[in-house]
């Protein structure tokens, strides 16, 4: 009996507490609800907001970018700022290499932009055409391909393009003295870009021409590895994009290149004026025209072209040569035409 009595009182308290809990819960529920309508309307606002010239916060959607690892630092820096200004835009970037980006992602319609450290190649154009992907070519910045030697090397600080070619062509010189008589009788140690890299293609085309690239060198995709290789040996030579040297100026010494008008050191100024020839090269990005039909992507493309003249960002933070006002205007015109074509 006693136990059943206990159970009864317990039952009552439990019932009471349940009722109290329920009451509190109902109150809380009534006070703490939100309706989804506000979320839903955000999406439709996106297209409205685009009519205003800078309806900054109304843009939303994803932007997929892939391509060259050389352009990666520049593009991701621009994306960072854009994402900050437009919190609802979700940009992402993959560093796949110029060719990998075109063939695996861009030309099959998976990405909105593809970055490239060289112009698009005929096979890639064909692939894009087969899949109905149209694009425009935008110049992102200018890079000065930098040839570097060890800091202790005081003899080879200036070279002609022909001497450079002798060092890197297929039947390359063995010893430094084979290139120029007064240079020491020491073996040349070479560190360069791997043959999958756009830098490799560019170097062959503009320095060696038909003589091709030597096989007798350490090939790598990592600028870092090239720099430490050159840093470690007095008789080493290597080449990579300007950005790496720009950020690590004490590590290795750049070679001044003589293209017939006296030796010119690589720098932001000499690259932009075109004096640093033949090693200054344009970097590209290719937006897909279909994607430009979406307002947030078109807005990003405009923002990107605007930023190509931003010296703090392009030169200071990343280490490439910013575009001139003139180039920027041209690019903007190309882009606006493409956007018009896309949005009708």
């Amino acid at each position, binding site marked *: 009996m006693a136990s059943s009595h206990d159970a009864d009182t317990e039952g009552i308290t439990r019932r009471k507490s349940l009722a109290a809990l329920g009451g509190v819960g109902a109150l809380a529920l009534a006070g703490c609800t939100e309706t989804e309508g506000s979320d839903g309307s955000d999406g439709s606002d996106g297209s409205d907001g685009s009519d205003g010239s800078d309806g900054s916060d109304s843009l939303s959607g994803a932007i997929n970018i892939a391509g060259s690892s050389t352009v990666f630092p520049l593009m991701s820096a621009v994306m960072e700022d854009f994402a900050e200004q437009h919190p609802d835009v979700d940009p992402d970037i993959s560093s796949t290499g110029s060719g990998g980006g075109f063939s695996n992602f861009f030309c099959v319609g998976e990405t909105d932009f593809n970055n490239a450290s060289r112009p698009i190649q005929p096979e890639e154009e064909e692939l894009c055409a087969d899949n109905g992907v149209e694009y425009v070519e935008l110049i992102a910045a200018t890079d000065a391909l930098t040839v570097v030697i060890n800091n202790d090397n005081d003899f080879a600080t200036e070279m002609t393009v022909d001497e450079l070619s002798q060092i890197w062509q297929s039947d390359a010189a063995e010893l430094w003295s084979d290139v120029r008589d007064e240079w020491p009788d020491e073996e040349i140690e070479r560190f360069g870009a791997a043959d999958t890299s756009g830098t490799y293609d560019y170097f062959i085309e503009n320095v060696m021409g038909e003589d091709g690239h030597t096989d007798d060198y350490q090939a790598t995709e990592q600028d870092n590895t090239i720099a430490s290789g050159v840093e470690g040996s007095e008789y080493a030579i290597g080449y990579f994009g300007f950005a790496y040297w*720009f950020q690590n100026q004490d590590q290795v010494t750049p070679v001044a290149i003589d293209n017939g008008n006296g030796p010119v050191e690589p720098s932001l100024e000499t690259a932009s004026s075109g004096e640093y020839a033949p090693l200054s090269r344009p970097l590209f990005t290719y937006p897909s025209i279909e994607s430009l039909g979406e307002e947030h992507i078109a807005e990003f493309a405009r923002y990107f072209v605007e930023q190509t003249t931003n010296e703090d960002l392009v030169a200071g*933070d990343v280490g490439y040569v910013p575009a001139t006002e003139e180039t920027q205007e041209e690019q903007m015109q190309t882009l606006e035409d493409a956007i018009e074509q896309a949005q009708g």
Partner: protein
Amino acid sequence: MATDTDTARGEGFGEVSRVRGIVFEYLSLGASVLGIFALAVLLIYVTIDAFDLANADPLWLLTYFLTLVVPFLGFCLYSARDPALTRRAVAVAGGGLVAVAAVFTAIEAFVGEVPRLNWQLTYLFVAVIPLTGYLTYMGARGRPGSVGFGLIGRLIGGTAIGLAFTVLFLVFDERLWFLAYTLGIVPALLAYAYGQLRDTPAAVTAALPVSILGVLLAVFAREALRTYPTTAFIYLWTLAIPIAAAGAVVVNGRGSRTAALTAGGVPLALAAAVGLFGRAAGLGVGGPNALVVIAVTGVPVAVYLHRVFDAGDGLTGLGLPVLLAAGALAGALVVETFGIPTPSPWVSETFLTEAPSRTASEAGLYPAIVGSVIIIAMVAVLSFVLGVATSVFLEEYTADSGVVGGLTRLLQINIANLAAIPSVVYGLLGLGLFANFLGLGFGTAVTVSLTLSLLILPITIISAQEAIRSVPDDLRRGSDAMGATRWQTTKNVVLPEAFPGILTGTILALGRAIGETAPLIMVGAATTVFSPPSSLFSKFSAMPMQIYAWANFPQAEFRYGVVAAGVITLLIILIGMNGTAILLRNRAEEGH
């Protein structure tokens, strides 16, 4: 040596040369020492870079050594209550100081400068950290120590699990979860409890159909309903209240009803108060995430405190968190007062909570951490379910002979070979099958987790099979003799016995999955994203992808500092994951 063996052979019971054995012993010792030493040097440098210890003032190190490390070691020694151990510890700490300083200075004088190390740091890594590890182990064996570490473990573990919940709700729809919980899980639990209490088997049987019906209903209701409780209230109702209830039930089983109400109610009230009103009341913390973290941390801590007070032994151990917090505060105070320069570690709050940036000091890993956590959670579930199912089938259900046996063996060989296939190939498979053919999207969480699950599936299957095979046949036959069906034997005998082994295999496999980069690149996972993913079908990045990208940045701060910080973060998350699984395994092993 040749003569030795000759004599041994010639005279039968002559002397046998022990040279080979001794050489072999020392060779194997050398091999293991070499491996551990290389790894230790790497980890030491990564740690130094990640925490900017190379720039740490010796006075700064000394301050925290005195306020934080020494009291902790004292606590461990107090807990161990072993005078011999205390003498040894003091000798190692003191002798190590002299020895390390002398050897290091000698090396610097005669061999050359050691980059980014000084004798104080060397002492820290060579003497203090191993000593701390050893004393922690010895201290944990004493009662106060085990109480202290138990409490700290619950504090840290609860916070980690709470944070993991909040991360998962970034991509999983909390409103759907709210409906599924309210309509499916709660009624099913009520039916089950009612059936158990009132002895009504029908109610217990109804629990499963009720939950399935409820979840289905929830999926439809999600489309129709537009008004929902706020996120904080959803978390309170679906996470905090059930956890508090579970805690109360546990305490109730051990002791009084008042204690149970307190153990469940106090953390719940605290969580609700901070979560719902924290921001409004001007506290630094608040919001739904704080609510989850406080509830998930608070309830286990309260239950544990009840247990410790109930046992009434080792109560001093409960002071350990206070000791450590006071030590850290005192250290900070001394550093502040005397103006000792502090290092600026790369692993910092901004690093863990911000998006990647082009400036090293602002760079963060947050989106990639979220991506990795979500991917690994899905991989864990997928590979565990698929792996265990396959291995149970192969071990318990298929025949050993005949055509079926032959097929099984063929399957076995294939599974073993799959384990050796390079991960890039799985990436290609994921690209072709999941991204292109099934259209799950390039680089989405679903594609990535399915690909990684396939990648580690062979390892999971093989280790689960080993675990199931190691269950003695006697147990199965015993169960058969009791008239159990094969399903009952598997469920009640084989799986519980094999569970610890299965978990170990899964842990190892998951460790591999979290660090994979190649298949992620193949299926098109992003290198960098700037905000955490909002659904399972948005583009993902994972920690290894972002770390690899940073390693190629031209700026030296990225290649040393930020990459090191990323590696340390990845390691900590990996250790946390493995720690959880190891705890679960030990629990399971203790169970019988």
